[in-house]
């Protein structure tokens, strides 16, 4: 059943935009006509603790949580959270990590959006859909800066 589903796991720490990035992937998958579910753990985690968010999309999604060992893509906005997520990974899991970005992007507040760009090298969702979503999420110049960060991540810049 899960073969028809793409499982993306976002990990990081509070304040890195994990929830925002996973919300945007959820919305993108939804607009492309997939069934999609997202599940996140936050609460006290907004105080700088570990944050994780599961996004699953495909024909029909049941459980909102990525099962152990079933992650197709891990987006680790914080390198040190990869080991926390280890049980959810498998040998074929693609890991998107800060070192995939330029040093400037990796430490920027837009690292989450740049990493969505890296992720999209694999997902291959239409770039204009992402750019629309980014502008819906961030107004004005911040939105344009995030569009550029996304493009750099996606190798489109």
């Amino acid at each position, binding site marked *: 059943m899960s073969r028809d589903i793409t499982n993306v796991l976002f990990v990081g720490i509070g304040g890195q935009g994990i929830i925002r990035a996973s919300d945007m992937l959820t919305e993108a998958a*939804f607009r492309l006509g997939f069934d999609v579910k997202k599940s996140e753990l936050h609460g006290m985690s907004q*105080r700088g603790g570990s944050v994780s968010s599961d996004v699953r999309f495909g024909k029909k999604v*049941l*459980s909102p949580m990525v099962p152990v060992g079933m992650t197709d893509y891990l987006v680790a906005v914080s390198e*040190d959270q990869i080991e926390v997520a280890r049980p959810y990974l498998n040998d074929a899991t693609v890991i998107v990590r800060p070192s995939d970005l330029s040093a400037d992007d990796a430490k920027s507040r837009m690292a989450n959006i740049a990493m969505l760009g890296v992720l999209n090298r694999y997902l291959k969702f239409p770039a204009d859909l992402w750019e629309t979503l980014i502008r819906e999420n961030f107004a004005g110049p911040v939105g344009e800066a995030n569009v550029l960060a996304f493009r750099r991540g996606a190798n489109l810049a």
Partner: protein
Amino acid sequence: MADKKMILSGDGAIAYGAKACGVTLGAGYPGTPSTEILETLTSIGGAAQWSPNEKVALEVATGVSLGNGRALVTMKHVGLNVAADPLFTLTYMGVNGGLVIVSADDPGMVSSQNEQDNRNYAKFAQMPMLEPSSSQEAYDLTIRAFELSEKFKVPVLLRMTTRVCHSMGPVALWKEDEAFRPAPYKADATTKVMIPAYARRAHVRLIQVMRDLAAYNEASDLHTVLNPGSSELGILSSGVSVQHVLEAAPEASVLQLKMTWPLPMDAIRKFASGVKRFAVVEEGSRFLEENLRAAGIAVEGKEDVFECGELSVGRVKQLLAHDTTPPPAGAPGRPPALCPGCPHRKTFELLSDLKLTVLGDIGCYTLGVLPPFSAMDASECMGASIGMGLGLRRSLGDTPEARRVVSVIGDSTFLHSGLTGVVDMVYNKPATGHVVLLLDNGTTAMTGLQEHAATGYHLDKTPAVPIKLEDVCRALGVDHVDVVDPVGDNDGYRALLQERLASNDATVIIVRRPCLMQMKKMAKMANSTEVKK
């Protein structure tokens, strides 16, 4: 709105469902994972308010319903303990306008002090309970809950869990917003004033209503057999566990219950008799299992380990295989901590340095228990810091040890249920007096910066008359009410605390410094049109 489809969290979906029913008022107290319901409701134009606590919220909702209005009450699971007093008599009184109570349980304790299973409240207080398994069902069942409430004249419990509240999925918003207007008010003391003579009749009525609801459930579409056909394994489940079960055991027939109290025992019995192996998969307590057994239905249950924590696809597989080995663990995650520059840090540095005995409360500042502060001895529930501090001082008698006891409570928690603790401090003052540190950061920070009665704003950002905490404490007759800035006058704070601890007086020190995140939010509000004049 009709036929619109959008991505919503379970919490958001409840707000949209309530809005579609023309809800007269949503009331609640912030608590993870329920907080976003009323925030969403107000953001889409519904009337919603933060109450000082869940008990008041339910009482306000009772009044809305008395006036034939429709009321939504939201809280986290432990909030229903606070609201339990009105709840257990509200079910006797019944409702006029629809009244739906959302209990957001937290199996696994992502952000809670216990993982109590509030399904038990439905049986205990005698009320119907609906349990959504997805955002779509959260929307559908909110609308259904209002229908049921008005049809049977009872409050309805909409029981959520963290994974339904905080997961997102597509929701078809099929219901046009109803232009609901409450019918004219008519008093009826014989059903609404619960003196013993009337309450005895009301109890008899309530038992009959629950029988009627059981019959309704039997005949309704609120239980469905998913994957019918397999006769080898049949699984009974509800809530998000249904989704895990469908994925973990695709070969099984699954009976999903959307209304889990009163139970449709005949439908369950029929389903059980049609399969070779009949198992219950439920998160938390053995609510379904025990009630099925009591009804004489043989059922396969679970090991104790599955009473703790939340279920997942993997854990459901283990539960069905009676495999109790711990699931694989990754490296420990990073624990939450007080923000850099958080004013609470100054208090916990001081408490740690003075090696005081600290009774804590519920808020960001509970993190004072963790290193580097390690400055908390006990924390129980909202408002408990003050009572526990008074009791500990009584236990320690007139000793130097007793003089080291302080209670630490936040501003929102104080208004929620700390006031009566201060009343007790004045009324039953220990021989050594007592010291309460009221950490006033101007917001309900831990749940995400919600307004409260002392902030000067309502949930919808309109201005409110702020309650002045120092005036309240003085009016209650506290011997000393001091206000300090823990950052601006840290030395003064230390000297004052030591002086008060040395006295035999009842003291409240209001430690006032705004939350940094709240200051950011206020700056944003000032730069936008969010503040309504």
